[in-house]
């Protein structure tokens, strides 16, 4: 505890350590929530610059929530809200070696449906869900990043899964 008193974000090595710890998660959080159009990388930069400017007022323990709140607000300030459509790349399942055109078409169709269903999720659902499914984060880790309970994370992720499957069936 005594050590924390001397740890100051204004020291560059502390600042860098915080950057290395949170920047990627922050970026991914912004990306899954708002998509790529609003430049999540630039928002990460801005949020960390704001952290630096306020380095004497913020303790290292508060840095994470400051960063997530600041970056989130920067995104919200930027533009009127519109539906987020995430880009996707083709995932090649290694088990299929000779893919016939019909299968490829089905696959493509499926991805389109999935993309649409994802954009229909609430921001909170999509963010938690993709941090879990794509980034492989466990409920507890997500809960810590977002400052919510593990239960709430579980609810969001399971809710997102159910909603996705429902929509894909219907589309």
């Amino acid at each position, binding site marked *: 505890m005594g050590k924390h008193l001397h740890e100051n974000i204004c020291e560059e090595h502390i600042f860098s350590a915080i950057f290395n710890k949170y920047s990627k998660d922050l970026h991914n959080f912004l990306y899954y929530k708002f998509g790529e159009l609003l430049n999540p990388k630039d928002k990460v*930069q801005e949020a960390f610059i704001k952290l*630096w400017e306020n380095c004497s007022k913020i303790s290292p323990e508060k840095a994470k929530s400051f960063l997530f709140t600041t970056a989130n607000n920067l995104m919200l300030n930027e533009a009127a809200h519109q539906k987020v459509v995430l880009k*996707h790349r083709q995932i090649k399942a290694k088990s299929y070696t000779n893919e016939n055109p019909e299968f490829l078409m089905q696959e493509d169709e499926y991805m389109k449906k999935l993309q649409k269903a994802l954009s229909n999720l609430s921001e909170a659902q999509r963010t938690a869900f*993709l941090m879990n499914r794509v980034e*492989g984060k466990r*409920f507890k880790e997500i809960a810590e990043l977002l400052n919510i309970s593990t239960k709430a994370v579980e609810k969001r992720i399971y809710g997102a899964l159910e909603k996705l499957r429902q929509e*894909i069936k219907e589309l």
Partner: protein
Amino acid sequence: MMEREKLIKKWLDNDLNDQELKAFKKLEDYDDLVNLSNNLKGFKAEEFDASKELERVLRTIHSTKKQSFWMHPVFKIAAILAICFSLYYYTTTIDTAITTEFAQKTTIELPDNSSVSINSKSLLVFNKNSWKKVRDVELEGEAFFKVSKGSTFNVITKSGTITVYGTQFNVKQRDDYFEVICYEGIVGVTYNSQLTKLKAGESFLIIDGKLIVTEKENNTTPSWLNNESHFKSLPYREVLAEFERQYGVIIKAQNIDKTELFTGSFTHSNISTALKSITLPLHLKYSKTNNTITLIRE
């Protein structure tokens, strides 16, 4: 049904034990779930290179650090004070400079009521603020001084310095020509760190570095103040140079001996008369086109 939800949640949280995994695999929508999960990987966020991004943020911070240093209120005030002070300093120490062009003469008053008449194509520089301490003027060209009594008065020229205490004198410093004529009082001329004292009517003349002995001056003011230039046994080139300055013309005088001594004068108010005055005594002819005058030997 409850069991299914629980299994799926545990699967999502990567928290299934062996037994639960077996049960999960038996769920009718197992393939569906795994397929969905695999396809979701295609929506992965753009690559984020943390070390590259950190470098970027540190670069910004380092450049704004300097900026914030200047934006600090204390520095803002300091900067304003510095600007005010230097402005004050600049305006109070700035020199006053008076220049005259071709065919232009002017008379000015110095801060102590001394007066200076400045002949054509000359420059006079002095400082109002230090005037009380040192009466120094810098001169390039020709000027006539009427100095009121007071502390030492210095006229600094490229050729030498003239020191006076309250008198009337003329200084002419042009290229290789340096002349001081004292009309009243005593004037000290320092030339090559040698002091020469001039009494009223005496003059000091250096041409091409050589001291020229001249006759006593009988006039009380230099002739140029009356819009005439007088020459007594002076090289012809000095006459031509003065003529050029007074009329703003260029004189071409090829094949003419410009070291020949000339005695005479020309007026500043009529160029034709003036031209005759300087050409007839030497039996020269002249032609004039625009601003160029060509002199030819008869």
